[in-house]
């Protein structure tokens, strides 16, 4: 098995590198956007000059227009800048805006792009907070993206108003108050990680994992709607890291946990894993699956991961590689096919414990491949993954029920 895993690791790495190369060679064009045409729609009747000046802008009688990305290029959402064309009157009041380009995940941002949502910015002045949760409504399933949108509009409007229109901006530094999501997530993650280590020392604390599973369902699942997913990695490889604190918290905490505790994320944090495990605890007879067939089918998640990586990176489009059920479920958005997969895998958990995590999940495959071996995980009859005795570490989600504390007593948890 160890040798197999090593080969799979090499194969996945080769797929990723080749896909990046193919993407760079064949799919690397940036779309050309006719900003003047969009301005004609945003301010009918106005005739704008060519773009020019510092910061770059368009002028018309009584109006100034600019692309937020030209003024605040460092503000990034989930997958890069959210380029927005803003039209402002001479008093520094927004009269029109449209998102003209972004690479955010459609599942999360489809509402953010609608005129209905963007109308919340219309009529706001540069002296307004322009802050999510204050004068602009958030979108619960697109926290990172809407915060980036608001921040880029706020920062570029203030700069344009003061530099181009000479408007005195009275508002002090804003936009920090609403960015508390990352603090909640980091606090939850750290507490769960602490409990993970406690349970290794003392099985009395095993109940804390159940608490963590329920909180995982509530915090990254329902409240933040941002479980860790391959999309975050694809976005990072293709377009660089986001500067959202929540994004950084998600990616950094997961990376650290993989290094220190393998698939800890799967066993303690993942909201879909939590839901699957809770469904698996229903008192329904489980199917009797032979060890050979179970072992063979568990490898299915690796080709699925490989295809997902190839599709996302070669096409330079993260969504092409997305089949992740937690993205569909917690963003409440996806095709009928994706919803079909969510339904099927959730129902399957009733008969086969952690069905999705064992056979299909790309995050499970990736974190499993990166787990460091630890032979103190021996498995037992209570294993939530139905692992056979002496499992490979890539299949262990670190529930710690079978952890053997060899250094002191040689006894087993659970």
């Amino acid at each position: 098995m160890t040798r197999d895993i090593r080969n799979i690791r090499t194969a996945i790495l080769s797929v990723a590198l080749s896909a990046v190369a193919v993407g760079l060679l064949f799919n690397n064009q940036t779309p050309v956007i006719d900003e003047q045409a969009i301005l004609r729609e945003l301010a009918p009747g106005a005739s704008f000059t060519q773009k020019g000046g510092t910061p770059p802008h368009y002028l018309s009688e009584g109006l100034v227009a600019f692309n937020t990305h030209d003024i605040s290029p460092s503000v990034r959402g989930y997958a890069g800048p959210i380029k927005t064309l803003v039209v402002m009157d001479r008093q520094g009041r927004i009269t029109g805006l449209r998102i003209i380009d972004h690479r955010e995940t459609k599942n999360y941002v489809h509402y953010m792009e609608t005129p209905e949502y963007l109308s919340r910015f219309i009529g706001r002045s540069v002296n307004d907070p322009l802050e999510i949760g204050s004068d602009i409504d958030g979108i619960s399933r697109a926290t990172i993206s809407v915060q980036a949108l608001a921040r880029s509009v706020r920062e570029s409007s203030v700069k344009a108003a003061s530099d181009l229109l000479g408007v005195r901006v009275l508002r002090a530094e804003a936009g920090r108050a609403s960015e508390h999501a990352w603090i909640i997530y980091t606090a939850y993650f750290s507490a769960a990680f602490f409990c993970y280590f406690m349970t290794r020392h003392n099985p009395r604390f095993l109940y804390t994992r159940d608490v963590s599973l329920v909180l995982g369902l509530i915090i990254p699942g329902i409240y933040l709607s941002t479980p860790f997913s391959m999309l975050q990695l694809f976005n990072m490889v293709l377009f660089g890291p986001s500067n959202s604190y929540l994004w950084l918290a998600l990616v950094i905490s997961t990376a650290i946990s993989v290094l220190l505790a393998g698939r800890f994320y799967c066993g303690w944090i993942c909201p879909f894993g939590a839901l699957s495990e809770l469904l698996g605890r229903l008192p329904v007879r489980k199917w009797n699956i032979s060890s050979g067939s179970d072992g063979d089918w568990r490898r299915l998640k690796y080709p699925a991961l490989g295809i997902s990586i190839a599709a996302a990176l070669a096409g330079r489009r993260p969504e092409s590689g997305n089949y992740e059920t937690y993205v569909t479920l917690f963003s409440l958005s996806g095709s009928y096919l994706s919803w079909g997969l969510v339904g099927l895998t959730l129902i399957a958990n009733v008969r086969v414990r952690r069905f999705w995590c064992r056979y299909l999940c790309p995050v499970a495959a990736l974190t499993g491949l990166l787990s460091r071996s630890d032979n103190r995980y021996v498995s037992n009859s209570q294993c939530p993954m139905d692992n056979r005795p002496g499992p490979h570490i890539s299949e262990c989600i670190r529930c710690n029920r079978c952890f053997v504390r060899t250094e002191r007593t040689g006894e087993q948890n659970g």
Partner: protein
Amino acid sequence: MGDEKKFRALLVSAALLIACIFSYNIFGEYLRADIFEYIKRRAYYENVLKNKGLDLREGMHWRKKQ
């Protein structure tokens, strides 16, 4: 059907669904665009060309010429 068979059927269905999701992700946009184009052509045929007694193929030729 034994547990093993049901389990295999479940996994094969999930794998097929995933294959369809990948195809939809990659080709969905093109397919959707083609379908909309076809509906537009069809609507033009039904509303304009059919009334002139032309079939879809002749109509297209006639339209291009026009």
